[in-house]
C-alpha cells in the first residue's frame, strides 16, 4: 500500500500513532501531530510504500518541546527514539527538520555501507556520483538530471555496499536552497515542491518530489561509472576536466561520513569504486548543456 492511498485525515491520524514509511532499504516510523509535516509527506511521499507495522529501523518523532515557549515562539524537536541529536528549530522548519533527521539516522548507523555525502543518479545501469560541498550546485544539477531521464538514487547520501561495491538507492525528496528553487521551478514547471521555508541555517529551502519511477525502482542497485565534482559558476561554459584517480579517491574519502570508522573495509570499498570509474571536475552554468554533457559521458570499459 502506498502513502497516497491514505486520505489527508487518515494520514494525520496514522501519524499521531506513528506511520511506518519505507524509503530505500530503511523503514522509518514517523510520529507527529504537526500539520506541516503531514502536508509535506502527502505532497512528496505519495508514491512511497507503507511498511509493515511489526518492525521499523528508526522510530522518529517531531514535536514541540513542552515548554512555555510553545505559546509565543514555538519550536520543534526531532527525536530519534527519545534522543534529540539536534537543537530545536523554529516550528515552521518542521518538515525540513524531518528530512535532515532521517538523513542523520542513516548516516549515523548504516555501517554496512560506505556512506558518501554526495548525490547519485543512474541511467542505463550506470551511476554518476556527485560529491560536493554545499553551494556547488550538486542538488540543483541532481534535480535537473532526474527531471530529464536520469533515475534518482539519492540527493544526499551515496550508500556503497561493503559486500559488493554496488550503490544502494535511497531516493528521497531533493533538497533545494535559495536561488536553486526558482531555477528548478522554471526548468520544470510541473515539478512538485514542498512549501518554501525561510531563514533556516541553509537559507530558504524547499524539497522537490522525486519521480515515481525512482521510488518504484528503489530496490534496484547500480554500479558507479563516473564521479563528477560539480561546480556552478554564473556564465561559465560547460567544461569537463579529468581528475586523477588518486586525487578523486582523497576527495571522495573527505566527503565520506564513516570512512575512518570502516577502516580497511572502507579503503577497499573506495578503491573498488575507483577501479571502475572515471572522475571529472565539471564547471557549468546552463542546466540543459550540463545534461547533454552527462548524457554523453563515455561508458567506462
Amino acid at each position: 500500500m502506498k502513502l497516497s492511498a491514505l486520505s489527508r485525515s487518515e494520514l494525520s491520524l496514522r501519524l499521531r500513532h506513528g506511520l511506518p514509511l519505507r524509503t530505500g532499504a530503511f523503514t522509518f516510523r514517523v510520529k507527529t501531530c504537526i500539520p506541516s509535516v503531514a502536508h509535506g509527506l502527502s505532497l512528496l511521499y505519495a508514491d512511497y510504500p507503507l511498511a509493515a507495522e511489526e518492525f521499523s529501523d528508526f522510530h522518529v518523532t517531531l514535536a514541540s518541546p513542552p515548554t512555555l515557549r510553545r505559546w509565543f515562539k514555538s519550536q520543534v524537536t526531532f527525536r530519534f527514539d527519545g534522543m534529540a541529536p539536534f537543537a530545536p528549530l523554529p516550528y515552521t522548519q518542521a518538515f525540513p527538520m524531518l528530512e535532515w533527521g532521517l538523513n542523520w539516522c542513516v548516516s549515523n548507523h548504516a555501517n554496512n555501507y560506505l556512506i558518501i555525502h554526495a548525490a547519485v543518479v543512474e541511467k542505463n545501469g550506470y551511476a554518476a556520483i556527485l560529491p560536493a560541498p554545499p553551494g556547488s550546485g550538486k542538488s540543483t544539477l541532481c534535480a535537473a538530471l532526474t527531471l530529464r531521464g536520469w533515475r534518482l538514487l539519492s540527493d544526499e547520501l551515496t550508500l556503497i555496499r561493503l559486500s559488493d561495491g554496488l550503490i544502494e538507492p535511497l531516493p528521497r525528496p531533493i533538497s533545494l536552497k535559495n536561488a536553486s528553487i526558482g531555477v528548478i521551478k522554471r526548468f520544470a514547471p510541473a515539478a512538485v515542491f514542498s512549501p518554501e521555508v525561510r531563514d533556516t541555517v541553509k537559507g530558504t529551502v524547499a524539497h522537490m518530489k522525486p519521480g515515481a519511477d525512482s521510488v518504484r525502482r528503489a530496490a534496484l542497485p547500480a554500479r558507479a561509472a563516473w564521479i563528477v565534482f560539480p561546480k556552478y559558476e554564473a556564465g561559465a561554459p560547460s567544461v569537463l576536466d579529468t581528475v586523477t584517480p588518486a586525487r578523486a579517491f582523497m576527495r571522495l574519502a573527505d566527503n565520506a561520513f564513516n570512512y575512518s570508522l570502516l577502516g580497511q573495509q572502507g579503503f577497499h570499498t573506495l578503491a573498488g569504486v575507483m577501479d571502475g570509474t572515471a572522475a571529472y571536475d565539471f564547471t557549468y552554468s546552463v542546466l540543459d548543456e550540463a545534461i547533454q554533457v552527462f548524457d554523453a559521458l563515455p561508458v567506462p570499459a
Partner: protein
Amino acid sequence: MRQQTPQKPQKPHEQQALILAALRDPQALPGWDLPRWDLLLRQLRQADLTASLYIQLQQRDLLEKIPRQPRRHLEWAAQFARRHTQSVLWEVGFIRKALQEAGVSLVLLKGAAYVAAALPQAKGRIFSDIDILVPKGSLEMVESTLMLYGWNTGHHDAYDQRYYRTWMHELPPMQHVKRMTAIDVHHAIVPVTARIRPAPDKLLAAAVPANGETLDRVLAPADMVLHSAVHLFYDGEYDHGLRDLVDIHCLLMHFAQQPGFWGGLVSRAQELELARPLYYALRYATSLLHTPVPDAVMRAAEVARPHPVLLWVMDALFQRALLPKHPSCDDRYTGVARFLLYLRANWLRMPPVLLIKHLFHKAFLSPKQSG
C-alpha cells in the same frame, strides 16, 4: 482499509523486562518475532548493549538465525564497536609512552582494562574515556607529563579544581588537544571524602599484567569486580547502569573459571571495605541477569546485607534505575528512583556539611561565575 495498530509484545511488565530476557537467554533469540526485536533493539541502543548482544550471538553461532532486519542493526553496532576497540588500544599506547617517561607503570581501570586484558565483555563495549590508576605520590608527575604530551585539563573554574583536587579520587578529567580523547587519572577508586576507604595501595600492589604483550597492568580479578561494583552502586549515574551490571555479570562468569576466585572474593571485599557494594552487585546480577553465583559465596556476602527495610527500599530503587533509560522500561516511579539514587550517591560521597556546601555552590555560585 486501515491497518491494525502495531503489535506490542504482550503486557507492560513483559515489555519492560524484554532486554533482561534477551541477556539472560540469548539462546532463545532466534525464536523471537519482529515486534519483540523492534522493541529489544530500542532498549539495547539506549543501554549501549547492542554490540554486546551481537557478540553473545556470534559466540553461540546464532547470528545467521536472527531475522535479517534486526540482524543488520546488530552488525551496524558491531562494526562501530570494532573501531572503538582499535582506537582504545591506539590511545592506550600514547598514554603508556607518556607514563613511561614519568616512570610510572600503567594500571588501567574499567572499560580500557577490559579491552587491554581482552576480557569477553570488552568486545562490543563502548565508553567515552580511559581511566587509569596511579600512586597518589606520583600524581603531580603524571599530570605534568601528560600535559607535556598534549592532555589538558578542561575544568578551569577554581571551585572545580578544588573539588577534584581536595575531595575527589581523581584529577579533573584531561582531554587531548588534538585527538580530543579523554583520560581520568585516579589515585583511588572512591572519593577522599567518602565513608568507605578501600586502600589504593592494596589495589596497586595486587595489580596483574593485562596481557602477555605489554607491561600494562589491570586490577586483580577480585579487585576488578569490586571496583566495578563500587562504581555502579555508589556513583549515582545510572545512564549505563544495565551495561555496568552486565560487566559485573561477565567478569563473574569469566573469573569463575579461575581456581580460588570465588573463595577469595568476599574476604577481599571485607579487607577493602567493599562488602556492601559486593552484596548489591551479587544480589542484582543474580536477580536481574540470573548470574550463577555459588550458594556459599552468596551466603558469605550476606554479612554486608543491609537492614530489611533499607534493602526493600534499595530493591525498589535499583530494580528501576538499572533498566535502560527507555520509555518502555519506565514505570511511574522510575524518575523518582533515579533522583533518589543520585542524592544517595552524593550523600555517600561526602560528609553532610561538605555536601551542603557543595550543592549550594553548584546551584547558586557556579552558574553566576560561568554566566
